[in-house]
Structure formats: C-alpha cells, structure tokens
C-alpha cells in the first residue's frame, strides 16, 4: 500500500512523496514507515509513542481515530494512507 507524505515531512522520507509498505493493519503500515525512515518518528509521535495531536492519518477518506479498531484496522494493498498535519489559526 502507499503512504502519502506531506511536503514538510518529505525531507525525513528520502524526499519521496509516497512510501510503499506491505502491511495488514494501519499500525503495521506506520511501523514500517518509521522503520524505513526513522527520522520521521519524532515528527509523527510524542515521546510516549502517541501520534502527535496535530498529525492526522487517513486511511483513504477515513480518519484512523474513528476506524473500527483504530490503528489495528485492517488494510489492503490497494489502500492509501495519508498523513496530513492540521491547518488552523486565527487572530
């Protein structure tokens, strides 16, 4: 399956827009991503191993936080995982 890397994090992923992994769950896919590109880990996770609050991960069009089983949700080879840091602000 493909993991889409947002522009600010590509420098930690070999400058690639996508990374291919073979996985059966979201957790496994993310683990493979950070194994292939260890520098990504501290940008995605807090020191205690939780996804940073501003990092959104979508399996196709679904937020993984709301999937059945969350990070243990099953994935297929044809699925796309997108990492999307949040966009917000205001005066």
């Amino acid at each position, binding site marked *: 399956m493909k993991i*889409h890397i*947002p*522009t*600010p994090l590509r*420098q930690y992923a070999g400058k690639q*827009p996508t990374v291919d992994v073979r996985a059966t769950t979201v957790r496994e896919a993310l683990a493979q991503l950070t194994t292939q590109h260890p520098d990504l880990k*501290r*940008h995605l996770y807090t020191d205690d191993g939780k996804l940073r609050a*501003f*990092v*959104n991960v*979508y399996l196709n*069009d679904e*937020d993984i936080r709301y999937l059945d089983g969350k990070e243990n949700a099953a994935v297929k080879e044809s699925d796309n995982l*997108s990492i*999307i*840091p*949040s*966009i*917000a*602000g*205001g*005066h």
Partner: protein
Amino acid sequence: MLSFSQAYYDEIRKHGEETYPHECCGVLLGQFSDDGRIVEATVRCGNTRTDSLQNRYHIAPQELVRVQRQAREKGLEIIGFYHSHPDHPAQPSSTDLAEAHWIGCSYVITSVQQGKAVLTKSFELAGTEEDDKHFEEEQVRGGETNFTEAIAMNILKKTADG
C-alpha cells in the same frame, strides 16, 4: 518568495471579502522553486470553526486529503495556505504560529477591513521542527509577467537538473 499570477492573488483576496466578517481559508497548490514557491492553483476550503468564525479558522483534514489527491492528479504540490484577518492586521498571531505545522510552506494572510481586502502578506513557516518553527515574512511577487517568468525559470532549472 511566493510568486502569484494576478488572478490567483485577486481570488484569495476576493474570498476574504466574501466571507467577511468571518475568516476565509484555503490551500495554495503549485511548485517549490529554488527561491520559494509558485502558486498555480488555489482551492477554497470551508472554515469548520463555526463556534468562532470571526477570529479562528480550521480546515477539515478530510478536505485536505481530497485537495492533496486532486493536487497529485494535476502534478502539483500543497505549497501553502491562506486565510483572512477580518478587521485585523495582516500579521500572524500567536494562534497562527501555534497551529501552523507545515514547515517550509507559505502562510498568506489578507487583512480585510470593513469588508475590503486592504493588505496581503505572506510568511514562510521556517525552522526545522515544532520547537524552533517561526514565521519569516517573504516577498510576494505578482503580475502575469513575473509569474510566467517564475514558471519558465523553474522549468529551465528542472530541465537542467535532469
């Protein structure tokens, strides 16, 4: 530096006028170049902060996933974002910085006073990570001639790089 065609520049300012007194928000698509970013499309997004539309904005991540997919299909990248400050200066606030996470991208702010877009500025989110991120004001280059030149220079550079 952020290069715009006049049409895209006008479009994001118009968006801010249309949503006044609420904040507008959207995504800038285009290319990264040696000296900054070139805007080749803008995408209007909905502001999900319905509790505080006059001074907060938030783009739904699922909308960003869709925008990113559309960008990919067109061979473009997400290079930045824009929003408006109704009756407030075109300067990033502490909230803007705290909630900005796309390092290396442009954050464009348009000050809309009494419904009229008066000033548009762009700030690159500089730094290497959350702890040292900061905004640096960048030059905004507009107009058709400059924009066409920026695109041509970038194509030449990419060709030369092989």
